[in-house]
């Protein structure tokens, strides 16, 4: 699965893109897996109130299913405009 990170999440994890194998059924499960992946991941994902997720470029809640998903993006709350 393709993972994409943006803004300070990207900076803390140290990359904007990685490819992983996962059996996670939901975004929440995926995030738990990622936190175990490295200290950087754990730090970046320590405050989930400040994390938003998109599955295949659609904003979702953490309980969203990953069935059929090809890409998950994690990032801070958006600040456009």
């Amino acid at each position: 699965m393709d993972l994409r990170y943006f803004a300070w999440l990207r900076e803390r994890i140290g990359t904007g893109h990685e490819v992983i194998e996962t059996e996670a059924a939901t975004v929440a499960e995926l995030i738990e897996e990622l936190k175990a992946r490295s200290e950087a991941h754990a730090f970046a994902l320590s405050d989930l109130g400040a994390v938003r997720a998109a599955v295949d470029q659609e904003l979702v809640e953490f309980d969203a299913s990953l069935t059929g998903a090809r890409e998950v993006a994690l990032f801070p709350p958006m600040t456009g405009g």
Partner: protein
Amino acid sequence: MVPVRVQEAAFDVGAELNEFTDRMQGAGAVVSFTGLTRDLAAGDLIAMEIEHFPGMTEAALGTIREEAVTRFSLQGALVIHRYGRLAPGEVIMMVATASRHRADAFAGAEFLMDFLKSRAPFWKREITASGADWVAAKDRDEAALNRW
């Protein structure tokens, strides 16, 4: 003219507004919003950097735009948003809306701005003399969505 554009290049707000207005035959009201990089903190902003999520950005803005057009019976709506490095005082983005009556054009533009602000994948970082800081999302921006 493409009604949603995400670009690094600067653009001319007045020219875009005129072109948009010219195409809105029969509209009685056109509203525009322009967002500029302010000198936010202690007057020492050097630059604003805007990161975005190519592909998702265009899709999200397109969805927000369609929703605004439907909801407020707009005759047209335009969204242009830049990314990359901007100097203080530069134009970051604009929206424009057209409708028969002024209330819809105003509401449509405010709706676009509220959703764009918290639902389109842009992230701003301020570069100042003392370093670089990601702009924090504001509670009031999230709260602004609840009125719609």
